[in-house]
């Protein structure tokens, strides 16, 4: 592996993010080419965490935009400070009326996360989380920012980026994203971590966790993720919670009983828990 990639991997490790080679190489290339990075994967595989870890590793501020249905440019990009504009007009009525162009100046502009990220003097990491939850028109609106690193405000003009933010988009694939958006991004698909990586994550994130217990939890979680009986697969955060819960109870070894007491930290559905506790193979896999 090239030294630059090694260094990046090391930096991410220092931030307690256990990254595999493919992730490191993709992140490095996206960063160096100033390409937005689109990350897809099942819920809970650590997509958002990539952006957080990158911001810490590069020493950049993280600006986060959480997408939802109905999100529009007034909440994501900018809004005019209407109250201030009205006050200015009313004040103007007593004296000199403000010119229209002054009313749409920078003074009256309320920057939202996207505008804030490109107007920042220092480059930031911009996380556009769950882009698939936003409407298709918002996705189209993002294209200018993603490809040109600039945004256009009709009354004000085009705002170019003062510094280039590193943009990370995440998606759970609840609706397909447009071809245009995909084309502008580097793409990374995250799988659930394998057992050895999960052990490393558990050890990094849950200090003081016994190595054998970490291995048992990792194996059990891998089994749950691969089982057809489980409808909601446990995320990495849930496996961390589970390990922390076991540690809090002073459990040294995962067995039938301790599993029954704490499985609610990994599985969040009563049917799933019942099904799994009745699954002899799961109990055997713990031993």
């Amino acid at each position: 592996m090239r030294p630059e990639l090694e260094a990046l991997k090391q930096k991410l490790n220092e931030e307690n993010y256990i990254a595999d080679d493919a992730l490191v190489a993709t992140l490095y290339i996206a960063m160096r080419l100033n390409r937005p990075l689109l990350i897809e994967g099942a819920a809970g595989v650590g997509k958002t965490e990539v952006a957080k870890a990158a911001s810490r590793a590069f020493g950049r501020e993280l600006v986060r935009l959480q997408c939802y249905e109905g999100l529009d440019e007034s909440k994501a990009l900018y809004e005019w400070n209407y109250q201030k504009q009205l006050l200015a007009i009313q004040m103007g009525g007593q004296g000199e009326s403000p010119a229209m162009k002054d009313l749409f100046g920078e003074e009256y502009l309320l920057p939202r996360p996207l505008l804030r990220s490109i107007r920042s003097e220092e480059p930031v990491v911009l996380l556009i989380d769950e882009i698939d939850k936003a409407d298709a028109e918002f996705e189209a609106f993002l294209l200018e920012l993603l490809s040109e690193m600039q945004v256009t405000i009709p009354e004000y003009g085009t705002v170019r980026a003062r510094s280039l933010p590193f943009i990370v988009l995440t998606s759970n694939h609840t609706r397909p994203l447009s071809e245009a958006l995909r084309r502008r991004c580097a793409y990374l698909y995250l799988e659930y971590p394998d057992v050895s990586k999960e052990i490393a994550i558990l050890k990094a994130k849950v200090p003081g966790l016994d190595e054998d217990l970490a291995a048992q939890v990792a194996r059990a979680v891998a089994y749950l993720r691969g089982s057809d009986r489980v409808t909601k697969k446990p995320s990495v955060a849930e496996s961390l919670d589970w390990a922390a819960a076991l540690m809090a109870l002073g459990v040294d070894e995962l067995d039938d009983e301790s599993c029954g007491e704490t499985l609610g930290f990994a599985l969040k559905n009563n049917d799933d828990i019942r099904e799994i506790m009745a699954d002899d193979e799961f109990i055997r896999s713990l031993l």
Partner: protein
Amino acid sequence: MTNSFEASSSAHDCGGCDCGSAHDGACAHGCGCGHHGHERPADAAPMERLVRFVDYLRVQGFNVGIREEEDALRALMLVGLEDREVVRTALRALLAGTRREQATFDRCFDLFFVSREQFEANMAAAAQAEAELEARRREMEERLSVNGKPIEFREDLKDVYARMPQSERDRLKEIVDKFSGKMEHAPKLYEGFIRSVFMRSLLEQQMILEDAAEGAAQADADADLMYRDISSFRDADIPRAHQLIDQVTRRINGEIVARRKSAGRAAALDFRKTIRAGLSTGGALCRLHYKKRHSRRKRIVMLCDVSGSMMQFSEFAIRFVKSLSEVSDHSEIFLFSEQVQRVNPFALENMDLFQNYVRSSGVWGRGTNAGRALEAVLAASPAVLTPGTVLLVLSDAKSVDLDRAEGALVRAAKQAGTVLWMNPIPEAKWQYLNGVTRLRRHCDMLPCGTLDELARACARLVG
């Protein structure tokens, strides 16, 4: 691979470039400045290879533009060419935009980029294999002969012979030798016999190939389930199929919401609301309000065939339609075989109990009488079929008393807004089925043999 893409790591002249400031493109030198000017021109040979690879990807259906190609080249200059896996990751991240594309990309990459030794070894192996096949074709002419005269076979059958395992070829030779003495009496008969033995071997070879295709399908279990005939699902496939249905319906619902939202923007301005809201800002109309569009959800009446093998299909189809909350907020379900039964809407809240429900209903497992079922729907009081309803018939259209079924379907088509017929039998076989030919004249019949077709048919409900 040589290392000819690698960018210089020596100190560079960074004049005119303000690190961290805004400009397009990337710097190849690690200063993070995003400046074009520093890149050392790439050697022509690897660049040409990359261009060819991108062309190859385009032929494979990838949508790669000039900009992506340019970025791919820059990426290679950044990471160098020493590590095959890093090169693969770099190109994959930039050229393949979905998970499915990434899988195809990996295959293309492995086929395209091979070392010189591997390439030469592949070529030599291919040449040797071709020579062997040619030798076997000749051998066939020599070995399979009647009275010294070779039996005539088509060229494609000769290829099949050449690809047969040695044991099979020996077996054919044995048969010819065994009967060669008797051939003089009835040459035509024995030639026909040998030909039939040959055809059987050919079919066996084909079956081996189909098994291989099935193995390939198993490698991508989800794709396999989406495109496999529902009737061939094993019990073990059912939970995964239910999850797939959930995923697909979630996506269809998402698309419908997005489409409605964008259509909603074009709705008429609500003056009253806009002016009232303007009062809070001293009469200035800061925010425009639009009239909301009326819900366009449909009322769906489902008539489900649960005779014998149709139950599994009906269960999947009902799951699909019930999960499409954005398409319909109310659905009425009738089950039928020879008898008809209207389903209590609460009884199917939990679809996991569907099969138990059907078995205990007394309707399951008999013949099919679509005419009686349609008449029962038409006669329901209060009327369930109105111009605003979509009648969805889930059946293979193999019904008794087709005259009655046809008559009832015509009346149902007049009474309901739309009649859609979801048929699990593949479309290619419809022409041989009398019931299908007669009934499809009066409604839209959609092939729904696989989950993918079912999903597409359900998406039609939106239109």
